[in-house]
């Protein structure tokens, strides 16, 4: 099953490579990984999307906790949470396609953030599956380029990951 794991860790050089190295050394999946400093500049927050059986996920959490730079680990799938990802898609937009693209973009609540002669660049946020759905709804031939940030996640309500 897919799991979203949030990690608070010391904002130290090399911390990212320790996490990435752990996943590759133990042959765990990484679907996506994002990391940035938090409001407390000494801490970074990482979100990893991974998948595996319950046993594997349990090991991943334990192994992450074992890393000396890791302060806290939360498996967001243990409770209610929100997942968001940002995607930029550059699509062909010529002739009648220009309206069609605009409509698709509106349906998915995206925004056109760059307009060029033959193309639009669309910004879209949402869960990974919403972004997938958008791409599926498009004709493959019109997609010129996509870039995704990977998921960020946060617990709902009073589920808070903080020191």
């Amino acid at each position, binding site marked *: 099953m897919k799991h979203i794991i949030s990690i608070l*860790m*010391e904002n130290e*050089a*090399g911390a990212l*490579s*320790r996490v990435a*190295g752990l996943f590759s*050394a133990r042959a765990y999946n990484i679907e996506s990984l994002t990391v940035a400093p938090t409001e407390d500049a000494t801490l970074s927050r990482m979100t990893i999307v991974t998948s595996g059986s319950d*046993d594997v996920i*349990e*090991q991943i959490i*334990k*192994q992450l*906790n*074992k890393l*000396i*730079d*890791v*302060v806290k680990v939360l498996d967001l799938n243990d409770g209610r949470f929100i997942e968001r990802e940002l995607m930029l898609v550059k699509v062909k937009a010529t002739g009648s396609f220009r309206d069609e693209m605009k409509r698709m973009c509106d349906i998915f609540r995206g925004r056109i953030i760059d307009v060029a002669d033959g193309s639009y660049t669309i910004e879209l946020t949402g869960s990974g599956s919403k972004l997938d759905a958008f791409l599926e709804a498009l004709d493959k031939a019109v997609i010129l380029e996509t870039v995704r940030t990977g998921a960020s996640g946060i617990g709902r309500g009073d589920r808070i990951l903080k*020191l």
Partner: protein
Amino acid sequence: MELSGAEIVIRCLQEENVKYVFGYPGGAVLNIYDEIFKQDKFKHILVRHEQAAVHAADAYSRATGQVGVALVTSGPGATNAITGIATAHMDSIPMVIISGQAPTPAIGLDAFQEVDMIGISRPCVKHNFLVKDVKDIAPTIKKAFFIAATGRPGPVVVDIPKDITAHLGHYEYPKSVEMRSYTPILKGHSGQIKKAIKLMLEAKRPMLYTGGGVVLGDAADQLIKLAHRLGFPVTNTLMGLGGYPATDKQFVGMLGMHGTLEANMAMQNCDVLVAVGARFDDRVIGNPQHFYNKDRTIVHIDVDPSSISKRVKVDVPIVGHVQSVLAEMNELLDAETRTPDAAALKAWWTQIEEWRGRNCLTYNRNSEIIKPQFVIEKLWEVTKGDAYVTSDVGQHQMWAAQYYKFDKPRRWINSGGLGTMGVGLPYAMGVQFADPSAKVACVTGEGSIQMNIQELSTCKQFHLPIKVVLLNNRYLGMVRQWQQFFYENRYSESYMDSLPDFVKLAESYGHVGMNIEKPADVEGALTEAFNLTDRFVFMNFITDQNENVFPMVPNGKGLSEIILAEDL
């Protein structure tokens, strides 16, 4: 106080009460070596290869429980150290390795003797640090010792660029360490401990399975107390030997791939298994699917949560320091009115004695050729079971583990997890430094000993009275054994040709060398060697080339699929 980075390094090591630093100099650590020259609080042991420095420091730690310290230069010094670091990491040995690094401004520019030590060592350390400012040296070294020694111990690398060792900085050694990201758990959960006690008291076929954690966690006394009170059989892993006295009647021997029949069968057939500081690894339980037994409940005590339920699902996990958890169990049992099920236990022991009666460790005692097992038995007799035995990796290692009855922890020093050939001699050096008057035997093979043979020179320089017990079978014996069993006798590259004259080799270093070719001479040679209390003696025992290690659980099989010598 303003000191140079190099002086600070020395002060920190002194503050940590380091007695020996095993190392090898080079450009990036010249400033540190200059400060070593000027001090006499700790002794520097110059080895002949950095791998040996790390192994020796590792063995010093295994023998004493203190953090072992090694010092190497950048580039090739650092890469030579890696095998030693990985070896210590796999066996959870507390160590601090200080490596030199190219000067800060040169890092990343492919400078002379630059290698990314942090990157290279990352997968085989508990943690590592690159020191980027002279003011960080003291706090970093303090943290390194703290991390190495606490929780599940392990090696920590501190990589220090050359310019940092020259910079001046304020020095103050931190009194304590506080790390929000690292707070090892000590005490086990009381509720879980009570649950475990209940299971143990209700068990019909109980079993204590203990590993290196008992040795590293100094929990042998508590284990003995617990086992004696409950009357349960005890088995040790390769790493756990000595954690429970081998001459005690409740000891059923080592378990695993080359464990005894009684240990493996009891392990497979028990109904309550209490694992203490052990990790159910593949050489111990074989195939987890075959190991699975629906009628068995497992209690697992370990300081490392990630060791629990990693290979085998556990029913009652207890995360905590094994010594503390076993002590708490003993206290609870002191206050306990219930007792173990005596009738069930009696029946269980009858079954175990039946397995034990098969004498799975018998071998041909009337052989004209020296049997390796016989040498180890005699070694045990001659040293009255009181020696430190270091070992290399191969058949000789298994025979040493099977036939030398270790009654005390920290006496059996070997590379269990990584299985590193070449550790034997440097391990013996580390142990001899730790206990200068002790009897130290290095049991080795002619393949393994040649992987760090250059250390004969270090042994000469420091007058180390080590006794090398070479079981010379002219084969990479363990490889040959697998080729015999699983590759239809195709002995691909496992014959060791062109061996040196070991006696002459030893003598060329000023050591004593002996060739022993007849069983009748074995005891005499060992006695003579150990009587030379101030000499390094190299005993070359010419042993049976075709001897195999039994029992054997083939790779990927279950513990009860064990093969005995008599089966073939």
